[in-house]
């Protein structure tokens, strides 16, 4: 039975539409994955020497064991958001002559080969190799490693037992913070004690049995739970939420773009991918800290223009680059309805304007790093308003890849094509070059004023620019409709 399942798994992977993506996207995604795993492996190899340097009196293995509790809690936390038991996949098998117990085993076994389990393997294998080269006893190290794998698997199964229970999440979060607080304020050396427990796994590898038993237990609990719930109306049912509708009366005041604005707000709020992007955008306001706290740049470096454009324009880029693909699911309806394309675009632009203002206001505290910071961010916000909004809408007219709104935002490359990579060049390149040249040959003030002035001029001309862009969208209408219909892109 498992042979069949494995074969199907293989086919579903290689025939999945995500594998049929454009080559560029594939290479990029592969690159990211390799980069992540490589940095984990490097970290695993390097941590021994790092710990040796920071805590010269303590055996690095002891320190690692102390941090293990954080690793476990953090992993639980991460998995809570990212990992889901792939139960939906067994729906087609329900009516076939396959025992429900094998289906359950299959689902659970499949979850062992998940990306999240690889993370700790990639970290701890290099670490253990370093340990071996340093002369730690091979038997102890390898059995300790097996314990770690067992613990990882337990985390894997515990996560499914938790099964998106908010209370458990709060508990994990509280434990994480609690451990840290106890340690940090020297109340109780909790990590040391837990660390000792893990160290025992190394000293006395017999305890490996305990961790393996624990995996067995968690597996069995999951199995028992699932086995009795493989029915269409229990585990396999998609959850539908009750809608809290609001008629958003306040948008009425905005006149002719009101219906579109309402639609856009609902689009953003009621779909996973767009909603995540809002939070991501808000979090990106912290991006400046990376640059402003580094002294190498000075207070008038072109890099800070990059940061300014990025922070005030993050929503502009995240949301704007996929206009009008956000509406791709129902684009043919939009095109056959009595819709003035211009109002449609105007509403999108309005939304982006608001986001730029909000992001600028959030960036005001950077004035702490000097008035230049505020000046740069302000001129960048103006530049975004006047110049980058039309640019991103212009590039949007080249979008013809569908986006399914239901999919999550994490590592979701749907809708991505070369356009998304090219658009960065004018968005960042032009203001950075302008600023660099003027700042170098004339002065900082002139550079800043020029950027702001360009923004103001662009904003004043926005009606003409929008007219031009509308014409462009009209010309590309058929290509967009056809493109948005293709599901496997």
């Amino acid at each position, binding site marked *: 039975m498992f042979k069949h399942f494995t074969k199907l798994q293989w086919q579903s992977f290689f025939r999945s539409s995500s594998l049929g993506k454009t080559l560029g996207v594939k290479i990029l995604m592969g690159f990211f994955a390799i980069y992540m795993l490589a940095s984990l492996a490097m970290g695993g190899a390097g941590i021994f020497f790092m710990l040796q340097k920071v805590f010269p009196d303590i055996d690095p293995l002891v320190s690692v064991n102390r941090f293990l509790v954080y690793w476990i809690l953090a992993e639980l936390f991460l998995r809570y958001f990212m990992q889901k038991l792939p139960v939906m996949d067994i729906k087609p098998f329900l009516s076939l002559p396959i025992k429900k117990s094998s289906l359950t085993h299959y689902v659970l076994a499949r979850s062992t080969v998940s990306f999240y389990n690889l993370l700790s393997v990639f970290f701890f294998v290099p670490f253990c190799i370093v340990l071996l080269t340093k002369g730690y006893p091979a038997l102890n190290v390898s059995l300790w490693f097996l314990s770690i794998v067992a613990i990882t698997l337990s985390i894997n199964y515990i996560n499914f037992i938790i099964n998106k229970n908010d209370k458990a999440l709060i508990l994990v979060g509280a434990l994480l913070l609690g451990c840290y607080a106890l340690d940090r304020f020297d109340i109780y050396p909790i990590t040391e004690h837990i660390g000792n427990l893990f160290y025992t796994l190394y000293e006395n590898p017999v305890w490996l049995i305990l961790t393996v038993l624990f995996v067995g237990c968690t597996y069995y609990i999951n199995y028992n739970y699932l086995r009795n719930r493989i029915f269409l109306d229990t585990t396999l049912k998609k959850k*539908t939420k*009750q*809608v809290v*509708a609001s008629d958003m009366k306040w948008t009425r005041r905005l006149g002719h773009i*009101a*219906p579109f604005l*309402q*639609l856009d707000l*609902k*689009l953003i709020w*009621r*779909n996973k991918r767009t909603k995540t992007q809002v939070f991501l955008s808000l979090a990106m306001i912290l991006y400046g800290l990376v640059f402003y706290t580094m002294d190498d740049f000075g207070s008038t470096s072109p890099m800070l223009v990059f940061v300014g454009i990025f922070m005030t324009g993050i929503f502009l880029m995240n949301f704007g680059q996929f206009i009008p693909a956000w509406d791709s*699911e*129902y*684009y*043919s*309806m939009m*095109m*056959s*309805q*009595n*819709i003035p394309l211009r109002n449609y675009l105007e509403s999108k632009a309005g939304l982006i304007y608001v986001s730029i203002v909000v992001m600028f206001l959030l960036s005001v505290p950077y004035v702490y790093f000097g008035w230049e910071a505020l000046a740069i961010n302000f001129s960048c916000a103006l530049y975004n308003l006047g110049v980058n909004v039309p640019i991103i809408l212009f590039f949007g007219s080249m979008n013809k890849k569908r986006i399914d*709104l*239901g999919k999550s935002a994490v590592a979701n490359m749907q809708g991505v094509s070369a356009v998304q990579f090219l658009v960065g060049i004018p968005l960042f390149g032009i203001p950075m070059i302008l600023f660099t040249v003027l700042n170098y040959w004339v002065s900082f003030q002139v550079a800043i004023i020029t950027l702001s002035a360009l923004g103001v001029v662009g904003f004043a001309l926005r009606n003409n620019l929008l007219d031009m862009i509308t014409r462009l969208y009209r010309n590309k209408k*058929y290509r967009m*409709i*056809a493109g948005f*219909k293709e599901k496997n892109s």
Partner: protein
Amino acid sequence: MISVQNLTKNYSGQIVLNLESLEIPKGQSFGLVGNNGAGKTTFFSLLLDLIQPTTGHIISNEIRVDQSEAWKTFTSSFIDESFLIGYLTAEEYFYFVGELRGQNKADVDALLSTYEDFFHGEILGQKKYLRDLSKGNQKKAGIVASFIGNPEIVILDEPFANLDPTTQIRLKGIIKDLAAQQGVTVLVSSHDLIHVTEVCERIVVLNKGEIVKDIETSTKTLKELEEFFSGSTSTIA
């Protein structure tokens, strides 16, 4: 109302639609039947200017649909589920469409109240997004949305598929009423010969993109259609 001249559509050299001429007068209930790939949806997509004709054009109410957008004000349609906005509730969707067609909430509510029968209590006040409704209920919502704003032309692609028997019967009544009482030109495609013969005054049969039959509906029509589709269609084409 609608007039078609030398309309063809090719996809990489293959002709999927070839209509020399077709006139649909105002207020006619017009049925389009044909097997899969006969060109029904292609014709409707051309009518809605969703695809470009290879040659020829369609004139709707003296407006060339591929040149002006003025036809949008008096034409409405429901082709498939992709005409629905999944993250809206049914009410929100109706109001949105109403807004686009110059109808305020009260107008839309008034219209919806006449379709309460048709909805059968499964569409309004459900607190569910359209994407979470069943296929049949999605269809109901889409069909009724196409009646909002007093359109002069209503285009429905396979409206009877996925509907339960009660709703099918009610929909037939609605379509007949639209054409007979309100003078709306209704274009319907279907795979169900009984339904089209009941609803439509005129039935056109498409086969491989060409018109092979153009019938004024009478008592003999159903038999004629059944004979046509049970025999080998290729000999006639």
